[in-house]
């Protein structure tokens, strides 16, 4: 078998995110255009410089089949290479990075958008719609009729964790409270006020044992990143970070039970590939910060262990607050990358970050995890 050489590094030269809000009256393609054009402006590149655009979005929240028909031109895809993944935007970043590493393009854009074509007056109403879509993503003969949804999966996983691992509901509430409070002081607060563990415990029950403030507030928006080859990046202003490795993995089906008892396994596989590509042999001692995507506090510990980063001080685990404040659907992967790069830019010496994202369409069932290693330069 041929031995695998490391892929070439790929530079992050532009990164941008629209406001992340509970609802916004914008057509999907306008959000995509805003994020992509702002990311291109950061590095003074134009549409014609873009070799490939990879878009992350999903038809059902977008309200139309083949919604990329609407959004591709807004992703700088008019008359050029482009495609759309129905995946978290972390996957789009990995795909765009592969095209640059392959030498196929010098500049690639990845963009994720999430603005469900649905109006509700509160978070519960917004979640109810997303949960309806989640149910449609479950297997139709067995899982769908019995009401399986992402929240149900997360609830069962949390219940199992409490019973099997000794973590308490109080522990989970403290994790959520700390993260929400950290996020409220950040640049993109989904929830704007600090909260205490007691307030988390007093919030409305959503999927036993999980409570309202243990789930992210549903947000909408778009986030985009511009990637370039080292040679092209050397001549560009803008962001200065390097993606040295990415890894992806997809979780198992309902009936294997992995989603319940080993929810960390998918992230672990993605991390193993990312670390191998980045030649990172000892993450515990060489990673400064992680942007984790834990959709509930019960997944915080398992994901962190899977990344080999349990030893990081709490302030270095999702300094942005992670998903505790809010979650912008498939745009999340690039939002996490943005938060990580901003952290690297504001800390000397420039360090190394791990960016973790998952899709939340069917909870930890068939979960898609992406891990990227990013270094400040």
């Amino acid at each position, binding site marked *: 078998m*041929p031995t*695998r*050489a*490391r*892929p070439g590094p790929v530079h992050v030269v532009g990164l941008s995110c629209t406001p992340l809000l509970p609802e916004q009256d914008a057509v999907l*393609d306008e959000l995509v255009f805003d994020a992509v054009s702002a990311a291109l402006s950061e590095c003074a590149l134009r549409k014609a410089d873009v070799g490939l655009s990879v878009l992350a979005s*999903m*038809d*059902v929240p977008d*309200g*139309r*089949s*083949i919604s*990329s*028909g*609407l959004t*591709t*031109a807004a992703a700088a*895809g*008019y*008359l*050029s*290479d*482009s*495609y*759309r*993944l*129905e*995946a978290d935007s972390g*996957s789009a970043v990995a*795909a765009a990075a*592969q*095209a640059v*590493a*392959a*030498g*196929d393009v010098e500049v690639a854009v990845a963009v994720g958008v999430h603005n469900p074509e649905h109006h509700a007056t509160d978070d519960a109403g917004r979640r109810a719609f997303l949960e309806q*879509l989640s149910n*449609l*993503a*479950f*297997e*139709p003969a067995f899982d769908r009729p019995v009401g399986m949804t992402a929240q149900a999966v997360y609830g069962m996983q949390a219940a199992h964790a409490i019973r099997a691992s000794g973590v308490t509901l109080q522990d989970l509430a403290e994790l959520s409270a700390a993260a929400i409070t950290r996020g409220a002081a950040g640049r993109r607060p989904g929830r704007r006020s600090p909260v205490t563990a007691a307030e988390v415990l007093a919030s409305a029950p959503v999927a036993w044992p999980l409570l309202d403030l243990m789930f992210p507030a549903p947000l909408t928006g778009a986030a985009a990143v511009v990637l370039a080859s080292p040679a092209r990046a050397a001549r560009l202003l803008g962001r200065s970070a390097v993606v040295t490795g*990415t*890894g*992806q*993995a*997809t979780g*198992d*089906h309902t009936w*294997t039970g*992995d989603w319940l008892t080993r929810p960390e*396994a998918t992230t672990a*596989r993605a991390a193993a*590939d990312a670390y191998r*590509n980045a030649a990172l042999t000892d993450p515990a001692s060489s990673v400064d910060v992680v942007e984790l995507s834990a959709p509930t506090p019960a997944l915080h510990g398992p994901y962190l262990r899977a990344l080999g980063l349990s030893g990081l001080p709490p302030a270095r685990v999702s300094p942005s607050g992670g998903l505790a404040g809010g979650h912008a659907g498939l745009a999340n992967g690039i939002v996490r990358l943005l938060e990580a790069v901003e952290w690297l830019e504001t800390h000397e010496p420039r360090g190394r970050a791990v960016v973790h994202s998952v899709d939340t*369409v*069917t909870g930890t069932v*068939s979960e*898609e995890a992406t891990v990227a290693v990013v270094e400040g330069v």
Partner: protein
Amino acid sequence: MAQRAAVVGVGITDATSPRKQTRSHVELCQDAVWAAVEHAGISPADLDAVVVGNIDGFEGTVLGGKHVTRLLGLGPHLPMVVLNTGGTTGGNLMQVAARMVRAGTHDRVLCLGGPTFFGVRDLQSAINTNSPMIVEQPLGMGGFHMGAFAASAYQARHGTTVQDLASVVVADHRKASANPHAHLRYTLTETEVVEGTPLSSPLTQPMVCPVSTSAAAMVVASEGVARSRTSPAALIRAMGTSSDPYLGGGKGDFAVMENLAALARRVYALADVRDPRSEFDVVEVFAPYVHMQPMQLEALGFCGPGEGIDLIRSGATDAGGDLPTNLSGGPKCTNAGVAGELAPYAYTALQVMGDAPESIQVPGARTGLAHGTGGSFFQFENLAVFSRLDPQEQS
């Protein structure tokens, strides 16, 4: 480190109508995947990732691709990428898989396209949701109506008659009748095509693709893996995609496929193709509506504007002609959605590997062109150039 990518295994199931199909969606996918893996001479455990296509709303399950792939038993936590670009989903699968390999991070990636149209009771309604809502869909503009626009404009430009269009259908059916995997394997006369049920002028029922059920899969591998085989692989020499704007009204000229012509120039330059007519031994284009094939042949540089039908009538695109095109019968005789979109890539790869079904194999084919198109008013195009890659000489 960057490396070249090649197709090393292809699996295509036989096709039939949804009514006659006895295999389930998952079973069809399984048949195609196992055939591709076996043809590649690898085991499922060798796979580094899967790229799977689905079109939500056509399949009854959101992200249906994820389920199917998991049910195939391809190993726990295998990375799986779900692609959805509508009618170009199948054709784009290889574009994504090949970049994974070309980046040097993956050595063997599976592409899978299932029977997308299998099960939906009201297919036209699902297709219609990609017609631009708000401004174009409320006008009664659905799937084949968008297709009919170009046919109508092409007729107006070149004086093409309904008989001319029918001759293309006759040729397609003749080819499909020789392909064991095709769905509609009967031959038709021009009169039968012209007298078919009118759908949207000038299109009649036989001028539009059927709803088929089948699955297709391909294994894309590194050049190293490809050369270590004992039989030829299909090297991916060049590939690309191109996109028009969303609204049908932004296309400008419906009588010319400008987007495809621009993509062809780009991809030919990458592959250093100078004289497409003489350099390609085999071509498979995605032409679910009758007028698309002649228009595509023109956009791909095989003949001049308005000459596509004459080219087809001349026999040049038949088996034994100098430009064998759609010897599979193409999507007008078999279209199972994502599987049908992957088919031009699968058949072209098989042809240059020398492994196409015997009855449609172009003897000695070394260079091939595969094409895909889809989206609202066929706004998306994709292309790839394959060349035969011979195994390393054994010392």
